[in-house]
């Protein structure tokens, strides 16, 4: 094992899901036609002024709260000056000196060992516009310019790639459930940078920044790669440079972007166009009282209803499904969760749809769960009709009728099949009666085969045992 200890600090940018941008009334929407959600303020026209969007401040208070941060009650914004085409004013408005949140933590559970990942600070800032590079030219999409962000910076207190990924998963979950952000890494509403250094001593090694890593899993991979790369260099007695790298997922490698120059000078100074923001305790408490139920509360509910930890976590990670489930009061959560995480998820993923975009309305779903529980339909039946269920506005009863699916619920009919199977398999029956439990499975299989899957397996199973026991 390596003698080197990794030290990792993580910076995450999260887009706040406000209606409008941080300093202008343009819509904050993702995926619209380029340069349709921008105005003279976003474009940095001469003479324009920023007006702070208080919804963004409220969402930042939420974020700071769920990250257990202290919240600053008097803050100002600062200008970070640098020239780049994606930075329309050639300065970015941020909170350099008075971040809204500080001294927080996120608790992770590393195989039963709880650890607090310390948050150094969390500040509000505006996003840049999006550069689209092609061979000859660069195009700029100002829809993203001025979108509100919070940047969350941990202390260098993370030491393994697993801790890093657990932190990011937990962070994402907290912000998602506080409804601060969509946290969609693939759409750029959550962006992760990792600062990685290694050292044999207590003194920290040379820091390398890996920027804009495309997924939480890749953060872990990038850290592992970077640790190895640095170790190899040090072992070869080479000196590390402070540099910025990016992670190439295809190659599973980090690639040099630029060597950090000393004295990168952003010429920060307080933004004169925005007066001090003063937050009252009442205001902070009001915002905090409006924070939606967090994931941990839901998770506990799931576990209590008999859902496995694995499935509970899967539901939490897919907030749409979890939100969907929240809409039902009297439902068998276990059956419902199996249904959602199984065939329904597979269908939705394939179609790239949200459950809320499908035709699976509340009535249909609760009916479905009930009919499965009662054995009126089988899982196989559901597989046969899932496309119709998801895509058509039709109630379940009509659909089942149309498809000719009506399970044999008449016990006499089921019994008839069972007797037939028993008669045809005298030897196996004998084995069962002699104590071979596995024979039951075979017989049950035959019953299902004989009925072409149209009997309720639970009812059939019970009846089969009862009939066999009568022969004892």
């Amino acid at each position, binding site marked *: 094992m390596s003698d080197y200890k990794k030290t990792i600090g993580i910076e995450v940018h999260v887009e706040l899901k406000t209606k409008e941008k941080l300093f202008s009334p343009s819509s904050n929407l993702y995926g619209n036609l380029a340069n349709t959600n921008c105005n003279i303020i976003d474009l940095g026209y001469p003479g324009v*002024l920023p007006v702070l969007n208080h919804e963004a401040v409220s969402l930042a208070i939420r974020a700071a709260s769920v990250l257990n941060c202290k919240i600053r009650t008097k803050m100002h914004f600062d200008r970070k000056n640098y020239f780049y*085409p994606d930075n329309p*004013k050639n300065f970015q408005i941020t909170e350099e000196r008075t971040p809204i949140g500080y001294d927080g933590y996120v608790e992770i559970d590393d195989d039963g060992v709880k650890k607090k990942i310390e948050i150094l600070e969390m500040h509000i800032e505006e996003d840049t516009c999006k550069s689209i590079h092609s061979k000859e030219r660069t195009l700029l999409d100002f829809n993203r310019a001025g979108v509100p962000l919070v940047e969350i910076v941990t202390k260098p207190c993370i030491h393994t790639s697993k801790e890093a990924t657990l932190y990011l998963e937990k962070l994402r979950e907290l912000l998602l459930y506080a409804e601060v952000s969509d946290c969609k890494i693939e759409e750029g509403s959550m962006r992760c940078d990792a600062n990685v250094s290694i050292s044999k001593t207590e003194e920290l090694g040379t820091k390398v920044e890996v920027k804009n890593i495309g997924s939480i899993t890749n953060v872990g991979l990038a850290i592992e790669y970077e640790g190895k790369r640095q170790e190899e260099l040090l072992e070869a007695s080479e000196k590390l440079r402070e540099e910025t790298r990016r992670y190439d997922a295809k190659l599973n490698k980090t690639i040099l972007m630029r060597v950090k120059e000393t004295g990168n000078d952003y*010429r920060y100074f307080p933004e004169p166009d925005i007066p001090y923001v003063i937050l009252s305790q009442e205001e902070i408490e009001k915002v905090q009282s409006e924070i939606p139920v967090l994931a941990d509360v839901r998770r506990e509910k799931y576990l209590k209803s008999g859902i496995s930890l694995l499935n509970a976590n899967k539901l939490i990670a897919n907030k749409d499904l979890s939100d969907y489930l929240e809409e039902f009061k009297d439902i068998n959560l276990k059956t419902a969760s199996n249904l959602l995480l199984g065939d329904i998820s597979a269908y939705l993923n394939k179609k790239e749809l949200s459950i809320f975009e499908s035709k699976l309305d509340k009535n249909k779903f609760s009916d479905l769960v009930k009919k499965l529980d009662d054995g009126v339909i089988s899982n196989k039946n559901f597989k046969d009709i899932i496309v119709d269920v998801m895509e058509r506005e039709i109630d379940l009863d009509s659909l089942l009728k149309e498809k000719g699916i009506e399970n044999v619920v008449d016990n006499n009919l089921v019994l008839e099949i069972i007797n037939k199977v028993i008669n045809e398999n005298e030897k196996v029956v004998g084995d069962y009666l002699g104590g071979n439990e596995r024979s039951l499975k075979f017989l049950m299989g035959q019953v299902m085969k004989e009925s072409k899957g149209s009997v309720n397996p639970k009812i059939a199973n019970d009846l089969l045992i009862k009939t066999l026991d009568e022969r004892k």
Partner: protein
Amino acid sequence: MSNYLDLSINEIHELLVKGKIKPIDLVNESFNKIDNNKLNAFITLDLEGARKRAMELGEMEVPQDNLLFGLPIAIKDNIMVDGLRCTCASHILENFISIYDASVVELIKNAGMIIIGKTNMDEFAMGSTSETSYFKAPINPWNKDKVPGGSSGGSAVSVAAGYVPFALGSDTGGSIRQPSSFNGIVGMKPTYGRVSRFGLVAFASSLDQIGPMTRTVYENAILLNAISKKDPKDMTSFETDEDFTRLIGKDIKDMKIAIPNYFVSNVVEKSVLEVFNKIVNLLKSKGCKIDYVDVNHIDKAVTLYQIIAMGEASSNLARFDGIRYGLSEKENTLEDLYKKTRSKGFGREVKRRIMVGSYILSGENAKIYYNKALEIRDDLKKSFEKLYKEYDLIIGPTSSRVAYDTGLNDDDPLRSFMDDILVMHANMGGFPCMSVPMGFIDNLPIGLQIMGKTFDEAKIYQLGSFIEKELNLDLKVGANHE
């Protein structure tokens, strides 16, 4: 040629109400009087737009209570007027056409005023002679060899020459008051936040303020009534709803006035002090209580200004990069595009200030200079606020000398700042401050500045109007004051 524009606005208004004249008559008279080749007061004139607007207004009934209806106004060329060029007197914006109205321009238009054109100025308002303009510099109508002051030189000239009764200027470190002093007109820098800055091209955001430039104190107050309003687009603007003329004509007996010793020290030319002292004697004789006072840090205003204004300017002017609008020099690399565009686009004074400002904000310098300057600025403001507990107003000469020869500042960039040593305190503290003509030296006008406490423009107008009435100076260009 008609001479309606020489009348007071009350007289013009009465003629309009009675239907004896129409707004178009005023517009035509204004354009007839403007001989732009002579004084270079305007960078852009909008004859067509002004005439069209005048015809529209002519169809409407003249509102009895709106003295500004149908009157022509000139706008400094760093304030956005939709559809008109906004150059800031710079090559970099030489062909930039505004696509929106500044909030103050919306108010002007809603009041039924007619925009005649955009006035000449120092490039990006950086200068105090208007000679840093990329265009041909404006000329002082009192003496063609003298500078008109700056940076709102074109606005001051257009009012002094009688082209328009009203103009808007902007004042970051005296840019309304100093040219008003040099041209014999009335110029007010209102309390910071009184007038929205949305649509004013920023020079130094924490100091910039738009204000009215007029022939008389009363007309100045009327225009300020129209343009002051809290603006949801400017977070530094404040709720404002008052009549600034309300104290005009009220007795000034027992008014307490402070004169900082610095304002009458050897930084001011003797001839100016002589004129000023006459005013002091006049006020004393009318029952004002006048004291000479020392103000902590008062001599540091120029230094503070150089640090704060240039620091902010270096950031505010960063957006002119050749990428989205304005001059753009196509080059192969991004860095070359930036360099070439900005090298060609900005004039010497602007480049000098951007460089000094960038240096001041760099690394450790930010702490040594900029943050320190903010601290001292705060102390300076407090010193004045302490004075205002005892005194109603503070007075002094607006400028240390009268308008001087053109070209004088060319070789000495610091010299132009020295013009402004008396006017920058108002910007540092955000206080309202007005220049009103107080006399003549060698046939050139010189102004008195009256500074009030925050929000107290009305009292400034009260004293200013009193002095104006007592002196009854002939301020028509051409009048002889040898």
